[in-house]
Structure formats: structure tokens, C-alpha cells
């Protein structure tokens, strides 16, 4: 693997955006992205969990390779992610009770955010070294935050628009997501 760090970052953040090109983390994308301020904080929390769990996943891979038990990978990953989220939850509760209340139920739900498990699996499949994994996690987090914020901005405006009753809600959000995805296709070829 001789990919440069910049190309890994750009690829994860823009060209192969986790949300819009790989459909990872769609649930918070559709659920949380109603308001801009929440979207930014959510993006921050997810990025942090991504970085921590990606680092842990690198360690797990080394251990599993040493004891020759690849079938335990999935279970160990999910256990690490769940504990990281728990840790972040306790940390935020202690440091900033306001932020804790604002994020509410979406904080524990980060565990079932497929972007995080997906990240750990992708970096394993591509055989990234620890530094590449870290950059990959940062890029993926940035891309996730970007998609979430863009979507939230559009949806805040969409609330003021006159949308037919039938389309309102899920269908409208999906159409917007599709258009965003088309826009992100414009990044293809960047950084390669």
C-alpha cells in the first residue's frame, strides 16, 4: 500500500464520501440532519469515535493476526466500538452536560452507525498501516460531517418550501440526498 496520505484523506472525505457514495451512516444522515447546529455536533462526536475505534481496530488486527483467529474480528470490533461510545458518553456528560442533553438519544445510537464499523472493516481489507488508518478515519469523519451539514442546511430551507403532501418527509429527503450524491460525483478523479 503506497497511497499517499493526502490522497487517502481526499478520497475518504470527498471522492468516496462515506455517506453519499458508500451509503454508510445513512440512518443518522436521514434522522439527525434536520437542524444545522445538531448536525455539526453530531459530526464531531462521530469523527471522534471513528478516530478512537480505528486506532483500536489496528491494535485488534495485530492481536488477532498473532493468535490466528480472524473469525473473532467482527465481534471484537463491535465490542470496542460499543465501549468507545460508552466512554464518549460518560466523558461528554461530565465535561459538558448541555451538549449531552442536546445530543440525547443519538449519542448511544452512534454504536449502530455503520460508518464506524465500515471504517474499521475497510481499513482492514485495504491493509492500511497505523498512520494511514488514522488519516483515513479523519477523512471519513470530515466527509461524514460535511454531508450531514450540507443536508441539514438544505432541509432547513426545505421546511419553508411548499412540498406536496405525498412527497414530504422521507421521499423528499431521499431526493435531496440523490442530488447531493450526483454533485459529489463531480469530485471523481480528484487526488488520484
Amino acid at each position: 500500500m503506497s497511497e499517499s496520505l493526502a490522497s487517502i484523506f481526499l478520497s475518504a472525505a470527498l471522492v468516496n464520501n462515506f455517506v453519499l457514495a458508500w451509503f454508510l451512516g445513512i440512518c443518522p444522515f436521514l434522522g439527525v440532519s434536520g437542524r444545522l447546529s445538531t448536525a455539526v455536533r453530531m459530526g464531531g462526536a462521530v469523527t471522534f469515535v471513528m478516530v478512537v475505534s480505528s486506532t483500536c481496530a489496528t491494535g485488534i488486527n495485530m492481536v488477532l493476526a498473532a493468535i490466528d483467529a480472524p473469525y473473532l474480528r467482527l465481534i471484537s470490533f463491535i465490542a470496542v466500538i460499543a465501549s468507545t461510545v460508552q466512554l464518549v458518553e460518560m466523558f461528554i456528560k461530565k465535561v459538558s452536560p448541555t451538549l449531552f442533553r442536546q445530543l440525547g438519544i443519538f449519542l448511544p445510537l452512534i454504536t449502530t452507525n455503520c460508518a464506524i464499523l465500515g471504517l474499521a472493516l475497510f481499513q482492514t481489507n485495504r491493509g492500511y498501516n497505523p498512520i494511514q488508518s488514522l488519516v483515513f478515519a479523519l477523512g471519513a469523519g470530515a466527509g461524514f460531517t460535511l454531508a450531514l451539514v450540507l443536508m441539514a442546511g438544505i432541509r432547513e430551507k426545505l421546511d419553508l418550501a411548499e412540498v406536496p403532501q405525498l412527497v414530504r418527509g422521507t421521499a423528499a429527503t431521499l431526493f435531496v440526498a440523490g442530488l447531493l450524491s450526483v454533485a459529489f460525483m463531480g469530485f471523481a478523479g480528484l487526488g488520484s
Partner: protein
Amino acid sequence: MSVDRAATPTTPSTDEFIKGLWRENPVFVQVLGMCPVLAVTNTARNALAMGLATMFVLVGSNVVVSAIRRFVPKQVRIVTYILVIATLVTIVDYSIAALSLELHKALGAFISLIVVNCVILGRAEAFASKNGLWRSFLDGLGMGLGFTFALLCLGAVRELFGMGTLFGAAVLPAAWQDWVIMILPSGGFFTLAGWVLVVNRINQGRARRKDAEAA
């Protein structure tokens, strides 16, 4: 999911099976488990494989969770469910790799990602942890079939317009110009939006007819 909590043994158990197919369809009505729905449905074959794999895990986890529901302390239940699901997914992952390496490649990491499919954890928490073995089995089967049905709807439309084929067999005439966008990520969003519209329309029509009957 308040419907499930209210479910009492007085409702016929076949109802647990039927509700997942349409009335509480996990994809079209509950909008859960979106990641695999959009990611692997660029061909009907991938969609069917993904649907069946998810159904297996769903039925398995529902049965196991229902069987151990009296022994699991409330505080650690979510972790327990996740571990049960992760074990089942590992089984599916290795089975698919053994049966068809080509299919395993096409689905890639998305087989492993069944673990974080919210449909499965959702059914374990909302249904299987409160209901008996047989009902949980039926619930898992119904929800799994509904999920597979939704995936097939998407996969068939995307493959038909995107490549002019269905399950790999040419359907549209050779003069057909492929709509490349349908097999790209954005096509997934548009197709799902279209299906949600269709389902909304049908349900609206039904509700109106029911109102007319009641009046």
C-alpha cells in the same frame, strides 16, 4: 414500535408473520436498515442474496434472544444482543465465502455490516425480548421476507434500467440506452424515493377508502 409492545397473545400468531410484509415493512414504512438497502441493490441478484442473508440473521437472532430473554439482566441486554447478532453474521459471512466467492466479493464488507443493521437490533429489542419463541420466529421470518421484498423491488428496477437485464438475463431490447445513473449511488437514492412515493400513494388510497366506508 408501540404496536409491538401492545401485542398480547390474543392476536393470532399468523399476524406477527404478515405485519412485516407490508403494514410494518422495515424498509418502506419504518425506514430502517438503509445502508444495505441502497448499497448492494445495483443488481437483483445481489439484492436477493443480501435479503436472504439478513433474513437468516434476523430469524436466528430473534429465536436466540427470545430463548434467553429470561436469563439476561436488563443492564447488559443490548451488548448481549449485539454479540448474538455478530456471531450469526460471522457464520453467514463464512458460509457465503464458501458457497460463492464471486458473490462474497460483490457484497464485500456489507455482509459484515449486517451487524449494525438497525432492523435486527430493533426487532430483538422491541419484539423478541418480550415474546415467546414461536412468535419471535414468525416475526423474524415476516420482517426478513418484507426486507428481502423491498431489496428486490429496488434491485430489479435499478438493474432493469441501469443495465437492461434482470438477474443477468437480457430483458430490454438491444437498442436500449442504459441509464448509467441507476447503478450509481445516486440512482439508489432516487429509486428508493420513488418506491416510498408509490407505497405512500397506495396507503393513502387505502386510508381514504376506509374513511369513506366508515362515513
